[in-house]
């Protein structure tokens, strides 16, 4: 092979196929996966097939949601027609007002948002502090502790479920938000360990010279954490906030165990009890479900960029 066209960094490559009969193509191959090569027959066909597969996949993913919205806008007798119809006639907007007044969904929403706020704040602060300690401070046994922490992901939540429940009941904390809020302030909400892992990965990408300069100027670790690390870590913080938000929003077992009086219900729990009471009223149920899902959809819609970006930057190395 002639050497003059081989890009920098390709010298130490190994031919995976063992074929060396290919002549290099005079230009560095772009990384988009398309070789700079004129139009080959089959290229367009391949594209079309690819698009079709993606469209079918996307449609399959969207169908349940479309089904939900379509049912939410139908009268009950039209919902159950077989074969099913896709277009509501007439549009039964009344389902929404009916469903939302049948149960105090506004109150459920308020409860959920309260829990969200406390849990997200606690999770971000405590997970960030832990991650900071695991990534940028040196202490004896640091990596061992981190390894132990990671293995705790393997621990089924069911194992701790009963003892935790008994603990909260001994502390007279049943039917309050306390059991749902307090763990988050000990980096222990749903994905606590995962969050610490994500943040640690991200912190490791920040140049250590910054910390060193600050320490030489007499800053404390706290100061470094607050004035250097946190401001530089917005992407990963956004990701942790989103994950935590969705986790709390969808949490069902937690509220189910700890909340018994219905004025304390979260949306997920309210929806389930709604289902228990209005089994036959599909239109109402679907309308209520749509309203509960909507914030998550909107959230993802607007923050999708950060979502993928943040996880990407940290690069989850399995």
């Amino acid at each position, binding site marked *: 092979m002639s050497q003059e066209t*081989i*890009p920098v*960094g*390709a010298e130490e*490559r190994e*031919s*995976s*196929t063992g*074929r060396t009969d*290919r002549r*290099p*193509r005079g230009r*560095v*191959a772009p*990384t988009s*996966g398309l*070789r700079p090569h004129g139009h080959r027959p089959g290229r367009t066909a391949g594209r079309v097939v690819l698009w079709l597969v993606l469209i079918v996949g996307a449609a399959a*993913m969207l169908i*349940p949601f479309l089904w939900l919205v379509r049912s939410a806008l139908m009268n009950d007798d039209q919902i159950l027609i*077989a074969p099913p119809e896709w277009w509501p006639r007439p549009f039964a907007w009344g389902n929404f007002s009916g469903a939302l007044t049948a149960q105090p969904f506004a109150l459920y929403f308020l409860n959920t948002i309260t829990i969200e706020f406390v849990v997200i704040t606690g999770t971000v602060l405590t997970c960030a502090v832990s991650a900071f300690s695991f990534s940028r401070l040196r202490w004896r046994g640091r990596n061992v502790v981190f390894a132990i922490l*990671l293995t705790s*992901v*393997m*621990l*089924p*939540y*069911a*194992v701790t*479920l*009963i*003892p935790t*429940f*008994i603990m909260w009941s001994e502390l007279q904390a049943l039917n309050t938000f306390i059991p749902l809020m307090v763990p988050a302030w000990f980096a222990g909400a749903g994905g606590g360990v995962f969050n610490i892992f994500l943040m640690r990965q991200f912190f490791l990408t920040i140049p250590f010279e910054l910390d060193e300069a600050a320490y030489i100027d007499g800053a404390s670790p706290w100061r470094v954490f607050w004035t250097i690390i946190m401001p530089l870590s917005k992407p990963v913080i956004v990701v942790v906030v989103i994950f935590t938000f969705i986790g709390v929003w969808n949490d*069902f*077992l937690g509220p*189910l*165990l700890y909340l018994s009086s219905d004025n304390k219900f979260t949306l997920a729990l309210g929806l*389930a009890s709604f*289902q228990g009471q209005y089994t036959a009223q599909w239109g109402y149920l679907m309308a209520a479900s749509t309203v509960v899902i909507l914030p998550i959809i909107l959230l993802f819609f607007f923050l999708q960029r950060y*979502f*993928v970006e943040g*996880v*990407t930057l*940290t*690069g*989850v*190395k*399995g």
Partner: protein
Amino acid sequence: MPTSQWIYSERTAIPSLILMSTWGFGNAMVIFLAGLQGIPRQLLEAASIDGAGTWARFRSVTLPFMTPTIFYNLVTGVIATFQVFNQAYVMTQGGPNNATLFYIYYLYTKAFTQGQMGYAAALAWVLFVIVLIVTLLLFRNARSWVYYEMGDAR
């Protein structure tokens, strides 16, 4: 699609729930996306220069680099599915005729509807042992196909 009893028949209840859960793989998807970003560009480039087509590149560069991510999703997925609860509670209540009486749902009913906390705690530990054994087997099996560049295994 033939009309079916779906979750109302013993034979199809669990397959129906499985089918439903495939709509929930968004999380795994995000992690896969992140893993894909971690693939060294220059290797893909080098492969192209060596004349690897799309498929060959996927086979010999992308896939080996994705094995840690695949493994992570596999382990967390297995552990999570051992603890299925919500679908059983909301949709089928363990029925019809106990066809969807999943482990955690059974544990829940023992502990919180029948009040047998001790028994339920024992159930939890048994599940823990089962999950541990399965996880260890997965880890052992992973040595043969998961590829770590640095050996910084998770």
